[in-house]
């Protein structure tokens, strides 16, 4: 005889897992964006491949006067050669930009920081007060450059249509366990109900009563 506690536990476990799955898909869903603020001071650029971190759109916003440009990585590397800059290497575990400060050396032919818009390497560019740029489908060979004052803050935001990878398995598995446990309980109850039916009890009595004849 199976104790009722077993199917009850299965159903309860399923319920808990399903609830956890739902929570992961809703309240605890991972952010649909990653990124955050970084200092340009005065030049910031993304390392190769970083712009295509999520494969989705990237927004670059600058607080204050500045310049934002999108270019091919190799051309931007030539443009920034010898210029001190902050390089965005990716996104850390805290999902904030992971940066490295790169020292500069002797300036080149022209100080590119003075007027970055002068170069004709930009595929997209914005300059002025609080410039911003949205790169809809960044390629792995594209790089963003920001030139801004030392007090300016640069915010890089990658769109990320992410769901918790365990959420759907938990939800589906939980629902299955809940259904299994519930069905199990129903089956046990039916069996018990059949056992306790009056007709069967009368039959046993009748048989008992017939016995002494």
């Amino acid at each position: 005889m199976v104790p009722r506690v077993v199917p009850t536990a299965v159903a309860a476990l399923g319920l808990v897992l399903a609830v956890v799955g739902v929570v992961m898909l809703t309240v605890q869903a991972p952010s649909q964006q990653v990124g955050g603020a970084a200092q340009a001071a005065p030049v910031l650029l993304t390392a190769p491949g970083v712009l295509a971190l999520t494969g989705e759109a990237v927004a670059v916003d600058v607080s204050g006067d500045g310049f934002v440009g999108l270019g091919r990585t190799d051309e931007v590397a030539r443009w920034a050669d010898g210029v001190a800059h902050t390089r965005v290497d990716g996104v850390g575990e805290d999902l904030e930009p992971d940066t490295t400060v790169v020292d500069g050396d002797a300036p080149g032919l022209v100080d590119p920081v003075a007027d970055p818009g002068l170069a004709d390497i930009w595929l997209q560019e914005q300059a002025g007060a609080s410039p911003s740029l949205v790169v809809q489908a960044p390629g792995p060979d594209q790089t963003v450059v920001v030139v801004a004052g030392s007090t300016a803050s640069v915010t890089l935001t990658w769109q990320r249509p992410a769901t918790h990878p365990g959420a759907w398995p938990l939800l589906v598995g939980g629902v299955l366990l809940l259904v299994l446990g519930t069905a199990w309980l129903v089956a046990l109850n039916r069996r018990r109900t059949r056992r306790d039916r009056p007709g069967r009890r009368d039959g046993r009595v009748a048989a008992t009563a017939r016995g002494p004849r």
Partner: protein
Amino acid sequence: MSRPPWSARLLGPVVLLGVVLAGCAAPPTVDPAAPAEATVAAPSVLPGQAAQVRREVAARLQAARGAGEVDLVEQTAVGPAAALELLRLDVDGPQPAALALDDGSVAVLVGPRTDGWPRWFAAVTDPAAGAAGPAASVPPDEPPDERSDEPSDEPSAVSGPGGELPVLELYDSADVRSPYRLGGRMTLRPGAELPAFPDARAGAVSLADGTAAEPAASDDDADQDGDAAEDGSDDATGPGDTAELEAVLAGLADGYASVLTEGDASPAAAEFEPDPFVEGVLARAEAERAAVAGVADTTVTHAPFGDDPVLYAVEGVEGDVLAVTAVETVTTMTVQPGAGVLQPGAEVREVVGIESTDGTLTTRSVAALAFVVPAERGAIRLVAVGEGLVAADAT
């Protein structure tokens, strides 16, 4: 001790399954995408960039003309275009009402494949589209699905409603931190046909960029200028043809200067298709000589302009090469003693600032010339010319 029922034994795996599923629930991570390894150099410019460059150059040139600043002109134009602009500045001074260049639609955009500097690109205007502002038909800058050498569907040359001819514009960028400058503007000859070029987003093979005395002669240039052997198997010119082609290009300006000087008597005459421009230059020189006969002795010389025999050259899909060079013409008229005076024409008079001279009158003009060198190395044909007076002096 009795064995537990099967359903009770199932409880353990079920709980384990739940734990495993929960274990799958690690937070998602993000890693940088690996940059794609470029197997073929990108074109010097993409269509959207080219439109932006043309707008900016037009605006800067208009500002330079308006301000009358030599420095601004030199930052905006180079080569024959700079020589022509500087003369206009010298003669006219600041022109606040100067019109901007037409930065409208382009019918053909040729961006040579390169991963270095200096770099250049050419645009053929589309007068049929009118001067309706920036080209609405400029394709987006996304690279094509496959880098293809299939010719684009764009027409090679079109005429405007009033018979206005397309203009071949050249833009040159010296280094990565410098903007493009206008290198020349040449009007296509009536009926001229340009080679078919690969899609502008794929780029064409560059054979000369105006920096090397011998086109693509240095190791660096061999790498970055997209020589046929280096740049993939889809190039029309094979390695065996390269030396011959380089020789043809290297002799282009000298040969054409010789034809302009001697006409059919030139040893280079057979290399070029007969064209009305040569006939016009020869006829003009003869007319000038005749006009001052008995008063002045006239000499006319034609020679390559600048240090480079070929300013720019790029290969089309079928192996035809578009090559741009420039020729300088110096005309010297020396008045014979006591024979009278020379009265320059209106344009020259405007430059020299005198009505007549009894000494020597020297004029210099420059012609930017675009040629097509056929793949089969037949006669070279002139397809576009942009000429003008760049200096005049009277003593």
